[in-house]
């Protein structure tokens, strides 16, 4: 057992923290209020190689191991959760499946643009009638000569308004299949942008596929094996979301602690009150537990040993704890926490999404329970 980071990972951590503090933190309020992430920030992230984080060095990427990648997400999320999620959707929901399931031809065609910020990635699985029950998706892909025609609509596609490449899931004769769909593919239209409680810097759009033509070579993975692509990708992204939850929770805790020292009531800082100490101590305990879960799971990704059970445990625990911490730290702020001048107000709205996106807490609990019972020869259904 060794819980220390390597020298290289520590160096990365320092660099990521500096970038987050210098480039992201000052924009966090702007991102929330203006409901957009400035293009210049994506550009700066691209220059640092953050949009090529998981692409191997020999292919021109940064070649980060997953532990280092989680360090990046933790630092970005501590500054702006909207930005951390936009970066992760690109890296894990789009680049990762391309790296893992893509052909050499597909990689040659797309990786370069994805790596340098010319093209942002997005992931289109959810539909109006297929949220938690993703397997119920109704978008169809029918064979048409040397390609496919896609028909249907996808909801809540994060990065929708910005993305150049979409990983789209649709029903083919063989079952559900994954496709790489270019933004300028004929018949693809990016529609309604959701107005959300938090994570307002993200663009979450409806994607209309109206006989959208996709060449056969853009099938990602085998036909009919799309749910394997989705499942593997979602497992990995759930660990990433754990790292994002961790970074956010850490920042919320810091904000609460700072406020409790500065705010005086009854003749001294409120930090002297037991109830405040309880809020802070409980939050710190949860942050430590999250950190252990997240980095162990990230290490499992690097060992090629991540399983669905572990990914769901990380996602469930980290997202619930992060929101709980935002909530208790808002309480520490008192009336100030309800005002938009304080970052905790944004965090509270942002973190609430964690319990829903990339698999609700309910489906994580099902996946965890299913594994427990499967080991004991009992099949359970959602």
């Amino acid at each position, binding site marked *: 057992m060794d819980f220390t980071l390597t020298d290289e990972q520590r160096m990365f951590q320092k660099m990521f923290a500096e970038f987050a503090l210098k480039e992201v933190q000052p924009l966090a309020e702007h991102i929330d209020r203006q409901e957009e992430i400035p293009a210049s920030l994506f550009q700066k992230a691209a220059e640092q190689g953050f949009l090529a984080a998981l692409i191997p060095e020999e292919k021109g990427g940064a070649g980060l191991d997953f532990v280092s990648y989680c360090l990046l997400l933790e630092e970005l999320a501590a500054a702006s959760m909207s930005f951390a999620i936009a970066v992760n959707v690109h890296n894990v929901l789009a680049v990762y499946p391309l790296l893992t399931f893509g052909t050499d031809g597909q990689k040659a065609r797309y990786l370069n643009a994805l790596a340098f910020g010319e093209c942002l990635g997005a992931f289109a699985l*959810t539909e109006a*009638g*297929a*949220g*938690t*029950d993703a397997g*119920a998706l109704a978008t169809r892909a029918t064979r048409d000569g040397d390609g496919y025609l896609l028909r249907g609509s996808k*909801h*809540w596609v994060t990065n929708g308004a910005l993305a150049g490449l979409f990983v789209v899931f649709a029903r083919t004769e063989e079952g559900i299949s994954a496709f790489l769909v270019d933004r300028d593919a004929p018949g693809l239209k990016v529609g309604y942008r*959701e*107005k*959300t*409680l*938090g994570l307002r810097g993200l663009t979450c759009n409806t994607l209309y596929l109206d006989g959208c033509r996709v060449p056969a070579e853009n099938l990602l993975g085998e036909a009919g094996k799309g749910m394997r692509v989705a499942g593997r990708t979602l497992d990995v992204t759930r660990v990433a979301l754990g790292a994002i939850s961790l970074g956010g929770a850490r920042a919320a805790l810091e904000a609460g602690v700072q406020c409790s020292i500065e705010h*005086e*009531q*009854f*003749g001294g800082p409120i930090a002297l*009150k037991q*109830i405040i100490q309880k809020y802070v101590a409980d939050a710190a305990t949860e942050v430590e537990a999250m950190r252990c879960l997240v980095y162990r799971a990230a290490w499992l990704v690097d060992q090629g040993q991540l399983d669905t059970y572990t990914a769901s445990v990380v996602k469930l625990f980290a997202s619930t704890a992060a929101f709980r911490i935002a909530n208790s730290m*808002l*309480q520490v702020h*008192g*009336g100030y*926490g*309800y*005002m*938009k*001048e304080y970052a905790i*107000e944004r965090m*509270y*709205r942002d973190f*609430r*999404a964690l*319990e*829903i*996106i990339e698999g*609700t*807490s*309910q489906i994580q*609990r099902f996946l965890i329970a299913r594994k427990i019972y499967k080991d004991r020869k009992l099949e359970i*259904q*959602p």
Partner: protein
Amino acid sequence: MDFTFPKEYELFRRMVREFAENEVRPLAQEIDREGRVPMETIKKAAALGLMGVPFPQEYGGMGGGETGYCILMEELGRVCTSTATVIGAHTGIGAMAIYLDGTPEQKEKYLTPLARGEKIAAFALTEAGAGSDAAAIKTRAVRDGNYFILNGTKQFITNGPQADIVTVMAVTDPSLGARGGVTAFIVEKEFPGFRVGSHENKMGIRGSATSELIFEDCPVPAENVLGQFGAGFITFMKTLDIGRASLGAACLGGAQAALELAMKWAKVREQFGGPIAQKQEVHFMIADMATEIEALRSLIYRTAWLIDTGQPHIKEAAMCKVFGSEVASRCIQRALQIYGALGYSRDYPIERAFRDARIAEIFEGTNEIQRIVIASNLFRPEGVRISP
């Protein structure tokens, strides 16, 4: 024991619900977006007598007591938290202080137009350095002939920008502190030296304006001292005690609305081949919501009965506030979760409820302060003094 509402309260609830459904609900989203409750809506409420429900008819009120007032808050809380907050701050604390401790002349002059809804009230206690520690207020009132000269800044004042009449707590004798050194005053917005400061930009209850109130050498006539000179602490504690019960009632309405929305959606949303209402995670959440709401309803109306029958109610009112605000938050949390991503969308009412509900755990005495109130009332007869 009789747990049924008298007929007149049933009729009153029906009238209020009609008002809430027809006049408020259709505007709720706009009230949140635009950041204000239309004056038109307040006028309509006033025409129905809803701006003075708890007060006696001789002062322009409806004579509905705390029970009637809790019914109003529950029904408004069910459709629009901002509207409930505007009417609540006006009635439940601003005008209530005058009703509780005003002289007959003060009630005639100030309570009557407030109860009729011709004027709007606010209650000004909190300051930058005095939130939970209300006794630490710094606003000063110094005697000058027949006047008191007020200087200081109040913070987070609900209805601040609209209020015509404000009940203000100020220090009259710093050496005595809260016990004997704080006095309540009735201030009219036309008094020189009184002005509205910066407006707060809040997460929720955005239709209810919150601002600073600034007093710069503001002369207040001596006859506008509210309650006994030096006994302002008692005036505002009494007022806040009662306000807590009705705040709990507004939370009850919010929780009830969340339950109704969650049930409606769980019935129609299909995943895995059937309505999600069939999933245990979903219907157990709904069962918990309904159970907590029943407990809350009982607590609220029993406390209202204690108040209306002149019995001790401080501990129970604090319980209404803590339990009410936490039940509402929990119910809205669950409803949002049942809606999934749609619950996170600003196109659905749960998103607004989520933002609105959070303040109830903070304002009118944080839940931490309520727990101190409850504990100190429990331990006092045991000879243990609890201080914050």
